C-alpha cells in the first residue's frame, strides 16, 4: 500500500511541479545509456544553457531495448537522437522523422579484428566470423558487406555474422574474429581487457568509404508545422550546440558531469573521460548544421545495398536546414 501511496503522491507532486514551471518542456530521448557520447546535452543541462533559453529539458537515457524511433512515435519524447541510416529506414516504414541538426560530423564506427585470425585487409574477411550489433546499427555494416560482395549467410565465400551482445567478449574469447566497435567505446573496452593495439587491426568506416552519419537530432515532421514548436527546437539546438562546443573544450569536466547524471552508478571516470575525448574528435568540424554532401553520401551508401538495400528509394523531406539556419546565425 505504501508503495502505491508513494507513487500517487510522487505523481501529484510531479504534476504540481510541472504546472508551476513557466518554461517550455522538452523531452529528449537518447540513443543509448547515459555516457559521454551524449556529453553535449548533459553539459547544456548542467551548465544552465537550456535554462537560459527558457527550456525545461528532461533527458531520457536509452538502452538495449529502447528504439528512439518507437519512443517518439508513441509520444514519449519530443526529440530523439538517432543514426541517419536507422532514421531513413524508419522513414520508409512510414514514420515521419526529420533531421533538424547534425552535431556529429564524422563516424566513429569501426571493425576491430584480431591480428592472429589472419585478417590484414577487407579481402581477408571471407569465411571469417564478424560481430555486429543490431537494433539500427547494422545498416552501415550490411551496406559495406554488400559493397565488398560478401553474403552474410556464412560459408567459405561469405562471412558469418554474429549478433553481438552488449560487450566485447566475442573477440576476447575468440568466438568472433572481428567485432564492431566505436572509436570511443568498445575499442577501449577491448584495450582495457588486456589486448594491445599491436594485437589488433582496425578498419575505420571513414577510411573504407562506407561511413554514414551518426548521432543526429530528429523530430516528427508534422510537428514542424507548429511555429511554437519550431521556436522551441531552435532554442534547443542552439543550447545543445553550445553544450557540445563547451564539452569539446573541457572534455574532463564534461565527463564528470556525465558521471553525475548516471543513475546506474556503473560508469567509471577513466572510461568516460577517454570517451569524451574521442567524441570531441567526432563533433569537431560541425557547428550543428547538416552538411548536405554528407547526407547525399549516406543516402547513396544505403541505396547501393545490392539485393537487400537498406532503403529502396531516395528519401524526400528527411532533413530540414531551417532550424539550424535560424539557431546558429
Amino acid at each position: 500500500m505504501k508503495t502505491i501511496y508513494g507513487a500517487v503522491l510522487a505523481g501529484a507532486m510531479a504534476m504540481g511541479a510541472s504546472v508551476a514551471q513557466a518554461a517550455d518542456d522538452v523531452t529528449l530521448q537518447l540513443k543509448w545509456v547515459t555516457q559521454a557520447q551524449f556529453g553535449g546535452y548533459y553539459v547544456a543541462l548542467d551548465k544552465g544553457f537550456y535554462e537560459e533559453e527558457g527550456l525545461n529539458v528532461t533527458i531520457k537515457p536509452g538502452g538495449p531495448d529502447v528504439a528512439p524511433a518507437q519512443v517518439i512515435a508513441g509520444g514519449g519524447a519530443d526529440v530523439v537522437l538517432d543514426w541517419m541510416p536507422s532514421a531513413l529506414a524508419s522513414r520508409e516504414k512510414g514514420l515521419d522523422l526529420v533531421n533538424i541538426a547534425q552535431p556529429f560530423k564524422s563516424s566513429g564506427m569501426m571493425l576491430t579484428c584480431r591480428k592472429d585470425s589472419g585478417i590484414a585487409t577487407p579481402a581477408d574477411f571471407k569465411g571469417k566470423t564478424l560481430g555486429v550489433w543490431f537494433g539500427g546499427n547494422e545498416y552501415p555494416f550490411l551496406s559495406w558487406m554488400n559493397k565488398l560482395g560478401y553474403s552474410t549467410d556464412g560459408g567459405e565465400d561469405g562471412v558469418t555474422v554474429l549478433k553481438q551482445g552488449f560487450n566485447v567478449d566475442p573477440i576476447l574469447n575468440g568466438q568472433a574474429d572481428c567485432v564492431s566497435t566505436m572509436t570511443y567505446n568498445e575499442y577501449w573496452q577491448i584495450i582495457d581487457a588486456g589486448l594491445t593495439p599491436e594485437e589488433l587491426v582496425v578498419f575505420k568506416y571513414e577510411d573504407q568509404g562506407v561511413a554514414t552519419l551518426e548521432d543526429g537530432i530528429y523530430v516528427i515532421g508534422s510537428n514542424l508545422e507548429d511555429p511554437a514548436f519550431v521556436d522551441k527546437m531552435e532554442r534547443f539546438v542552439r543550447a545543445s550546440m553550445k553544450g557540445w562546443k563547451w564539452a569539446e573544450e573541457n572534455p574532463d569536466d564534461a565527463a564528470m558531469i556525465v558521471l553525475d547524471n548516471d543513475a546506474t552508478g556503473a560508469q567509471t571516470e577513466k572510461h568516460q573521460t577517454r570517451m569524451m575525448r574521442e567524441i570531441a574528435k567526432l563533433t569537431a568540424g560541425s557547428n550543428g548544421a547538416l552538411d548536405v554532401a554528407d547526407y547525399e553520401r549516406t543516402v547513396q551508401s544505403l541505396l547501393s545495398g545490392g539485393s537487400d538495400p537498406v532503403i529502396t528509394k531516395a528519401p524526400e523531406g528527411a532533413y530540414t536546414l531551417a532550424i539550424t539556419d535560424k539557431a546558429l546565425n
Partner: protein
Amino acid sequence: MMAWVFGSLVFWLAAWALNARLSRLSATWVRFFVPTLFGVTVIVVWEGMVRGFGVNPVLLPAPSAIAATFVGEIPTLWGDLVQTFFKGALSGYVIGCTAGVLTAIAVDRSPFLQRGLLPVGNFVAALPIVGMAPILVMWFGFGWQSKAAVVVVMVFFPMLVNAVEGLQASESMQRDLMRTYAATPGQGLRKLRLPAAMPFIFNGLKICTTLALIGAIVAEFFGSPIKGMGFRISTEVGRLALDMVWAEIVVAAIVGSAFYGAVALAERVVTFWHPSQRG
C-alpha cells in the same frame, strides 16, 4: 473510422451472449468452440480499435497486417523455429529433465542430502534467469549450446523437486509388499517407485515445456547467430517491424502450446491408471 470501433464492440457483445448460452451445454464441440470464439473476439476487437483509432503501426500493428507478414515470411519463421526450438530448447529440455530425474534417483537413498538439496535448489531457482543468460553465453559461445545451457539451468530444479516428491509418492503398503517379494532396492525402484512417480514427473515435464521455450528465446537476446526467434524479435523491434515481432510471438505461442499438449498426451498414455486421467 469509428464504425470499426462500434462494429467490433457489437461483435464482442454478441459473442459474449453466444458463449454464455453455449456454456450451459456440455457437448465436446462446445468445449473447443467457446475459447476459440473468445480468441476470435479479441482479435476482432483489436483490429477494430487499431483501425478505428488510427493507431500507428510502429506501436501496435493490426492483426490483419500480422497475418499477412506471417504468411509471407514462413521460410524465415521456420528457420528461426528450427534454430531456437529444435536445436536450443528441445536439447536443453531433454538434458535438463534427464539430469533432474537422475539426480533425484541418486539422492533418493539419502534423506540427509535431500533435506539439504531442496532448500538450496529453491534458492538457485530464484536466481533470475535473465541474469544467468549473458553469463552462459559468455561461457558456451553464441551457438545453440548456450541456449541449451540456459534451458538446462531453468528446467533442472523444477524437475528435481517434482521427481523427488514423486519418488516418495508410493504408499508404505506398496513398499512393504515389495519387501515381502524380497525385491532389491533396484527392482523396487524399477517396478514400483518409478511408475508411481510418473504423475509427478509428468507434472514437472509439463511445467518445464513453457520454461524451455522461454529460456531459449531469452538466451538469444544476449548473443546469437543471425537466426533464431529471440534474435528476430529483438532486431525487428529495433527496425520497427512490429508485425514480424508479433508473427514470431504467435509462432512461440502455438509451438509452446503444442509442446505442452504433446507432453500431456504422453502423460495420458503413461499414467492412464491415475485418478486425474479418468476425467
